[in-house]
């Protein structure tokens, strides 16, 4: 029996729900896989050794940290699921703008939470992460593919191609050409471009594609009327720390 755990840290539990939404896959998995730890879904949970441990949420409390470190010790393979665990999530979008004290005051006023808290961070800042499945929420198909690959001892293959790929192949009209700010060209695909199909610009919830050209995208935003700090904040919502410093255009830096 392959032992699988699903752990939640600071997040909305949406990605854990998405795992539960993979009903067909879970049906087929049961019998081969034992969900030995999945507090969101079952009453009895053991925290023993894991073959695969999926972790959702960002690390923002001392408790998160301890759980994660302990989980890492016990897991052969640790997979970060969802944008919070991969990049810190929306809760970390202002990490570079405000101090922890300012954040606490904005949220709690003069009160202080009982546990020790810090700025929300992705798992990779605390432990080594084997695979990342970003997305808000993570994509079910990618989850199933990842589980299938790992159960077979094969590393999953996720080329970081931009959302435009899936969007254009779905024959959507380009939102940028229609005046709607969209992060498709700089965001990691795999979601099937559901937002752009509905006319909503990509919000970049899956993080960066390979070597994104933010500089050009910002100048397009500028032409569309989304300027300066507003444009950068738009890009920062889900990317947090993974948004590089946007100073000057550079084409031929390594890999770009």
């Amino acid at each position: 029996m392959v032992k699988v755990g699903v752990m939640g840290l600071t997040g909305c539990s949406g990605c854990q729900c998405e795992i539960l939404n993979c009903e067909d896959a879970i049906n087929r998995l049961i019998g081969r896989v034992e969900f030995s730890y999945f507090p969101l879904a079952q009453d009895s949970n053991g925290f023993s050794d894991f073959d695969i441990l999926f972790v959702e949420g960002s690390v923002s409390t001392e408790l998160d940290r301890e759980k994660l470190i302990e989980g890492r010790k016990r897991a052969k393979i640790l997979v970060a699921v969802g944008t919070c665990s991969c990049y810190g999530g929306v809760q970390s979008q202002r990490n570079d703008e405000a101090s922890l004290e300012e954040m606490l005051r904005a949220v709690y006023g003069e009160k202080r939470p009982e546990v020790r808290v810090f700025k929300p961070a992705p798992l990779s800042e605390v432990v080594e992460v084997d695979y990342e499945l970003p997305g808000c929420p993570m994509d079910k198909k990618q989850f199933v593919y990842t589980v299938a690959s790992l159960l077979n001892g094969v590393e999953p293959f996720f080329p970081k191609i931009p959302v435009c790929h899936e969007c254009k192949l779905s024959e959507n009209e380009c939102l940028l050409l229609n005046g709607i700010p969209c992060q498709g060209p700089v965001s990691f695909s795999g979601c099937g471009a559901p937002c752009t199909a509905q006319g909503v610009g990509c919000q970049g919830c899956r993080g960066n594609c390979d070597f994104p050209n933010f500089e050009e995208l910002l100048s397009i935003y500028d032409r569309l009327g989304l300027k300066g700090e507003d444009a950068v904040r738009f890009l920062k919502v889900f990317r947090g720390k993974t948004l590089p410093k946007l100073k000057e255009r550079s084409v031929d830096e390594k890999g770009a």
Partner: protein
Amino acid sequence: MEFHIERAKVLPKANLWDFLEGLRRVSPLIAPVRRGGRVAFSEINDISDVTIDYTRTVLPPKKFLVPYRRVRFTYSTEDLSFSSTFKARQQIIFGIHSCDLHGISILDSIYLKENPDPRYLDVRKKTVLIGISCMPDDFCFCLSTGTAFPDGANWDLFLTDIGADYFVSIGSPKGDELIIELKELFRDIEREDLELYKRSTKKKKEAFRNRKLPDLERISQLIELEYESPVWEEEARRCLSCGTCTNVCPTCFCYTSVDVPDFEGKTVKRVEFTTSCQYPYYSLVAGGHYFKPTRTARFRHRYYHKFVGYPYQIEKFGCVGCGRCSAECPAEISMVETLRRLRGEDEEELREAAEQTFTDRPF
């Protein structure tokens, strides 16, 4: 003597919808459909959805010949027996413009000349291609690529608008069979129809008169010689590497293949998906080396392949001037403009000067 041409018929415009209905009775019909601000080739259930008045679809009809995602094989891990459930179906694609017909000819050469792909051949044998004439917009440059008219391409029927009627050229026995099947909708050609047909060529050419067309003379050599030109980097700065240009291209064919095992590890699907040379991973080999490491290299590669690679491989340009890559580019990079810059800013002046010299001559 009766005026008689077997290579063509006339379809009165009033009969077009009956013609489409007739086609749909023969086999599944695919035609351009307007959805919001875009037009897409789609399977037709109701012929009133068909639009014939369009300039370009977002994706070329290629998607009905080579799907963007396809399962090549399923294999068993126990005995490694490979099987395929692929089955080509009969289909008619109606309303294809000349450039896209040429695009399909190019795909024919790629898939069928060397190491022919039986799957593509099967699909192609079962597909009827019916073209329709069109007028260019600002992005079109098919006159430069020699693809403004359907001659030389692989198609079955081609409808040229000659005013009140369509002049229907018959390109293949399959096309002829359709005409025979629906013969009550057609009439024979008269001398006047032929005159109108001949004039339609001029009409389309004239529509290009005031448009910027790239000069493609010796373009292969030019691109090879200008390989180090700063134009590549300047244009590539604006490139988002989003792959739109290749994904909408009627002649691009690159794909990546991935083996996807099931939970039990008993069967594995070999899935192929369309990819783009604009994505960094495209040239990445195990060990971490990128053979096209910079955005400039990738950007240039597309032009290089279209105008140097294809001529070497299939003796034709890989560009049919459909203008999709420029029309769909989120950064509004224009192929025509890049080529023009590569030739040199003063190209037009040079040409004017040459013409001037010519007209100045005393005889």
